[in-house]
């Protein structure tokens, strides 16, 4: 008889939730289209290169004017960080409610013998990825370029990256905290609706309240419209010492020039504090909130048939596409994760406009240049809106898509219906931002007209790109709507739409520069009548028509071939 050594008993390790997610991600990547990844990687490289090249050129150009020029850049950095972090703040609560409470895997995770705070931490990390990954991806190359330009010391680079991460982690911590609080206190039966609505309103209110640390002054000033406007302007002023993104901006700017700025400390305290408070609260209230979220609206039985409204009948007269558009409108207005995005649109546009209006640039040429360059920022904001409304338009059909797929409606009708449904929102947003910012910066007639044209072009092409790429690579099985934009297709959309915004600027750069730098030679709209102006306008028209058509065509052809 032979004896075998007793098997050594390995101590049981805690299963890693992160590993579980990473394994799932690895399988998804392995099964996904390889050409798609190559395309996204190529696009990312091009985007980063374009960003670095553009920033380097801008710094060189502005640096030639001395400290006034580099200060202009510092202000632009502040506006950028305020806008991006406001966007993250506004969407973080909605995303946190979706991710923390409505993800399908919670049914599995929260019924396993796993500590609640670990599941919570995983879901907060997912919320960060869903809301802040794109802003982080866009910000880091910018910061590193600034660092290299100013010959920053080695320690400054990790510090700048950490600052950028904290800038976007703070709103996510706030969103998670609010989500846990609201899901705990909202009335049963309407938990999702009430929490999401309140979450968005509170997030927007908090952004404003950060500045209004003295509420009695705020109330006093709100009674006087002129003073209220000044207050709003001061709040949004890039030099506001009470806005966390400004702390971040000062810290980054200081680090790039070899200085350790005080702004880092309050940012660190705020971020760690918010995340710690959210985790502490979650250990007590998370599971309970999740159980409450499972109780959706309760039925109130009423046998009286409710017939179609006049609006529904009007939409139905447009054919299957019209019926689909009305169905989408109805579902959007009833789904808090979708209608709250409309509030985000309004809030983002408001913060952006107030920020732009408050930029103190006395030299007209600088104002003109900034006024033209900020059109690219506007393109980015429209993309930020489109990634929430246009890109998920097809994916939000979710598992009910079979109804359309097996119904007598073509892929072309579906894609066009989605496009016409989102276009009014993006077009209104683009035009309001384009006209209001041009007027508030007192730009000349050429730049005002170009703002309008670029806004219209951006709205058409970016919406079409969003709907088209979203239809080409739909994600019907997303755990929650916030996930849909964070996919290779979503990143490709952000990259392409940003590239399109820059292309629009390049097409019309010559007439714009002429009208700004030589107003004596090109008064009024004269710059647009020059050969460069005419060619630029023709180029913009062609880019708009082709960009819109080709994007939508790609969408319906790929959707038609989808299995």
């Amino acid at each position, binding site marked *: 008889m032979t004896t075998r050594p007793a098997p050594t008993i390995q101590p049981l390790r805690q299963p890693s939730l992160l590993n579980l997610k990473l394994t799932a991600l690895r399988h998804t990547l392995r099964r996904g289209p390889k050409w798609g990844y190559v395309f996204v990687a190529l696009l990312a490289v091009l985007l980063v290169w374009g960003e670095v090249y553009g920033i380097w050129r801008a710094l060189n150009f502005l640096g030639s004017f001395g400290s006034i020029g580099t200060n202009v850049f510092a202000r632009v950095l502040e506006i950028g960080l305020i806008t991006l972090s406001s966007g993250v703040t506004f969407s973080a609560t909605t995303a946190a409610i979706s991710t923390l409470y409505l993800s399908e895997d919670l049914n599995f995770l929260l019924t396993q013998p796993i500590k609640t705070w670990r599941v919570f931490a995983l879901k907060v990390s997912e919320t960060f990825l869903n809301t802040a990954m794109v802003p982080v991806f866009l910000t880091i190359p910018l910061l590193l370029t600034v660092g290299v330009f100013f010959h920053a010391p080695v320690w400054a680079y990790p510090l700048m990256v950490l600052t950028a991460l904290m800038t976007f982690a703070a709103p996510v911590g706030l969103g998670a905290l609010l989500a846990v609080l609201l899901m705990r206190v909202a009335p049963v039966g309407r938990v999702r609706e009430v929490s999401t609505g309140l979450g968005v309103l509170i997030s927007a209110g908090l952004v404003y309240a950060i500045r209004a640390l003295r509420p009695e002054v705020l109330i006093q000033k709100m009674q006087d419209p002129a003073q209220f406007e000044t207050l709003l302007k001061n709040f949004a002023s890039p030099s506001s010492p009470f806005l966390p993104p400004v702390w971040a901006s000062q810290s980054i700017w200081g680090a790039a020039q070899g200085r350790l700025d005080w702004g880092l400390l309050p940012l660190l305290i705020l971020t760690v504090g918010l995340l710690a408070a959210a985790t502490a609260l979650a250990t007590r209230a998370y599971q309970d909130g999740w159980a409450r979220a499972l109780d959706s609206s309760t039925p109130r*039985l009423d046998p009286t*048939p409710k017939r179609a409204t006049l609006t*529904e009948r009007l939409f139905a007269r447009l054919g299957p596409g019209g*019926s689909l558009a009305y169905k989408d409108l*109805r579902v959007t207005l009833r789904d808090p994760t979708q209608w709250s995005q409309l509030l985000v649109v309004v809030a983002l546009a408001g913060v952006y406009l107030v920020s732009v209006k408050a930029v103190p640039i006395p030299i007209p040429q600088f104002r003109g240049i900034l006024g033209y360059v900020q059109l690219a920022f506007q393109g980015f904001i429209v993309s930020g809106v489109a990634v929430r409304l246009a890109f998920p338009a097809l994916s939000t059909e979710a598992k009910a898509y079979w*109804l359309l797929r097996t119904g007598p409606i073509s892929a072309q009708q579906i894609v066009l219906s989605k496009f016409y449904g989102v276009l009014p929102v993006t077009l209104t947003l683009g035009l309001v931002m384009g006209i209001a910012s041009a007027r508030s910066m007192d730009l000349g007639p050429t730049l005002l007209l170009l703002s309008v044209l670029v806004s219209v072009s951006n709205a058409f092409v970016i919406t079409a790109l969003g709907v088209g790429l979203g239809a080409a690579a739909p994600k019907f099985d997303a755990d929650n709507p916030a996930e849909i934009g964070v996919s290779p297709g979503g990143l490709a959309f952000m990259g392409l739409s940003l590239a399109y915004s820059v292309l629009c600027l390049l097409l019309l750069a010559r007439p714009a520069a002429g009208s700004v730098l030589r107003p004596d030679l090109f008064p009024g709209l004269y710059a647009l009548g020059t050969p460069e102006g005419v060619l630029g306008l023709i180029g913009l028209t062609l880019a708009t028509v082709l960009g819109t058509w080709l994007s939508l065509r790609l969408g319906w052809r790929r959707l038609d071939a989808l299995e």
Partner: protein
Amino acid sequence: MIEVSHYSKRYGAHEAVQDLSFTVQPGAVFGLLGSNGAGKTTTIRALVGLTRPTSGTVRVAGFDVWKEPVKAKAAFGYIPDRPYLYGKLTARELLRFVGQLYKVEGADAEIDRWLTLFRLEDFGNELIETFSHGMRQKVAIISAMLPDPGVLIIDEPMVGLDPHAARQVRELFRAHADRGRTVLLTTHSLPLAEAVCDRLVVLDRGRVLGEGTMDDLRTRTGTAAGGVHGDSLERIFFRLMEEEQEEERQRREVVAAG
């Protein structure tokens, strides 16, 4: 009418369905039987335009589903095995939307009639997200029946239905075929298949094991009608499976010997 001609579906190296051909005439209920992974749902998905055939053609009401999709889809109603519907619409709103897509005349009255038939009249104005699985399945069935389609394609119709609704649905399919319509269904329920199907195809791992009427299959397998309701088809089904397993065993022995 449904015509499936030399239909094959391959996913990479795996062949889900091999060279399947059958025709379903108007007035008939046709059943696709088979165990899990037999290829029933893959076939249904090709018929309703959810999966493109690797080879072969699928035609509904004379239209190739992949060449003239909108015409083909206007001709059939489809009931999936899992009734995913828009949770944020009420049952009436969803059914009106379906009525608009299919251009159903007098849709409101028809919707009321169907809701009453399935005892859902009190729930017509409620959001579908508040419905149980069985109630959703009933709404999915109504949405397929509302346009009174010439061809009805059903994937596992009885999942989640209570006994009353299950009997109602069985009678509904039979009556639909008796009015000169075409009905194709897949099911695991052998009693259901025996009760309503005029012709059957038994599939296993993508291949046809047997095809024909109940009498054809009895003759082919040498089984007689059973005493218990449904027992007969059950015996035919398992006999076909045993034959297939025996053939597979012999093939392996030949390969091992050679």
